[in-house]
């Protein structure tokens, strides 16, 4: 389910999407790491999404069409899922959390579990890793710093 939601947030196009970047791996690791404190929020939030989906579409969220999922999340982002047994500001804040954590996973350092092979850096065309002493990093007098070090 996290995979479906995060792929909606960062879909694959000509560049890698959330699934390719192993964003789910970030969630798996951080929810028993730094984000242990959000476990309950996630459990409740995902349950709410699932039960709303079953009640209104008679399908699990992951089995909704792509466009249905998009619309679902857009409505949730606005806190406007109709007749949801789920307060509007809770819908909004859970979406904000999903969005924020997905971005951290996709753009953050791979050492936290996501951004596999720096796929987001490739998309942005920023080279990685930075190699200290690499020729184009020059000090003001034009020398590379390797010698100075």
């Amino acid at each position, binding site marked *: 389910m996290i995979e479906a939601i995060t792929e909606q947030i960062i879909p694959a196009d000509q560049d890698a999407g959330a699934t390719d970047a192993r964003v789910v791996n970030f969630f798996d690791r951080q929810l028993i790491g730094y984000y242990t404190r959000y476990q309950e929020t996630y459990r409740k939030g995902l349950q709410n999404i699932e039960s709303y989906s079953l009640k209104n579409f008679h399908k699990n969220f992951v089995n909704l069409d792509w466009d249905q999922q998009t619309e679902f999340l857009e409505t949730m982002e606005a806190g406007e899922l109709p007749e949801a047994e789920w307060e509007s500001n809770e819908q909004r804040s859970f979406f904000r959390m999903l969005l924020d954590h997905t971005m951290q996973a996709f753009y953050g350092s791979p050492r936290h579990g996501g951004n596999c092979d720096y796929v987001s850096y490739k998309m942005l065309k920023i080279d990685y890793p*930075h190699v200290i002493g690499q020729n184009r990093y020059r000090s003001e007098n034009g020398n590379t710093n390797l010698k100075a070090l």
Partner: protein
Amino acid sequence: MKNKHVNAIVIGAGAGGGVVAKELAVSGLSVVLFERGDWVTYDAHNDDELMSQRTHPFENPFGPDNKRHRRVFVGPNGTSRIVLPHEYPFSNNAACVGSGTVSYGAMAWRFMEKDFLMKTTYGHVEGSTLEDWPITYQDLEPYYEKAEWEIGVSGDHTGNPFQSARKKPYPMPPFAYNKDGQILHDAANRIGLHPFPIPMLRNSVRYNGRPACYRMRTCVGFACPVNAKCGTHNTVIPIALQSGNCELRTNCQVAEVMVNEKGLATGIKYFDENDKGQIQTADIVIISCAAVETARLLLNSKSRLFPEGAGNNNDWVGRNLQGHAYTGASGIFEEEIYDDVGPGACWAVGDFNHDNEGIVGGGVLCNSFFTPPYAFTRLRPPGAKQWGLEHKAFQRTNYKRISSVRGPFQEIPNFDARVTVDPEVKDHWGIPVARLSGQRHEYDRIGCQFMSDRAEEILREAGAISTWQAVGGRGLSGDQHQSGTARMGNDPKTSVTDKYGRVHDIDNLFVADGSLHVTNGGFNPVLNIMALGFYIGEYITKNWNGGTFTSK
């Protein structure tokens, strides 16, 4: 075992405390420098954006940690909540040797003459505690120079025509502009402004035994991998330690300053690295914990003569909490303007620091530090979709085409933006935590709007095809530029310390950090804090008589 009595205790090894410790130690005083954090290195977090001092969704990479530290924040509606150190609005300053000077952007601004004379210049502002400093720019000028030469600044001393008079150039030449800076420089010149390269506490050439900067994109928010950034941790603190007169005690949390029946400080109570309660006595105590923690420590230091906390008999400790309302604009360019020559910020205009018609104060405008990829996901024009294919397209198209011009607006201080201690919540050691309440003066919004308008004009002139503003808000101030909570002044009824940073009525207790700032200038304040450290350090050593320190 009892700790050996020393001449001076300095609490906090940051911008202010590091300098004072060095000044005292090299003059022969025995010093213990206390730091609640530890030494940090680049390798601990390298260039990990999620572990930077600017973006820290997990925890603070440079401390303080989430396990042992807490604060309470009181919202505008009066409800209070506990805030963890890495959360907004904890108002964090790094807890490590060197504090913020390890990971800062390192802009090296002197305040201007008028920054010390805000009330004389602008008169009374309703609802504010706007006041003149008890010292002037001229008083501090020699100490700015010391800070620039001893800690190390690169810059063009003739660059800013609005700066106040200085005697000496910077010790290192300025950094060359990156592409973004050059474009903004040309644009600013075309509309009659006076752009110049930002003075930086960062080596542009080899200096003080450390190498020149090689201009990585990750700089602000990170420790420097080659030690080219100049902080107190790699300049004055090592000198203090080399003198043989200074002991640095890391991982120590100070609980209170002990004040005796004569109204003199006798030392401190603290918890050592094993959480064991200890006492250190000294002839002089200097507090340099930054505005929030300095106020907390003073307020937690209760004695018979000072039942509401040291220096707080007139209820001024913790008042006038300031920082900077950051404000500016961003623009998208047709061509790529990002050339990966770090750290981004390199260009400034000082045209709007004062003498803006109808505006109290002002601030410097600079191009911003590079925005790393995760932070960039929030850099959007109003109303832009934050996710989906649009999100990706925006990232891909614009990552190298956006420039932001921003600056710190000089805040108008107010009495109700304040630090108190919470009556219930305590930290790991059982010490009452800081409680933050109030908000910025309503005037700040006007000043911020003015500066954002100017920033947007420059971007448009520079060729931005689409621009938008981010205008500083009214939330409670503080953060890394925190200041003002132990204001210096000549009248004990309306200030906390005298003009040498000495707490009124406690002759041997000093404050040496941004807490002293009567007003916070329209600049990043670190050089001013370092200069105050040199100024106060010199005052103490000159008046030191070898025993209990008293002016009476």
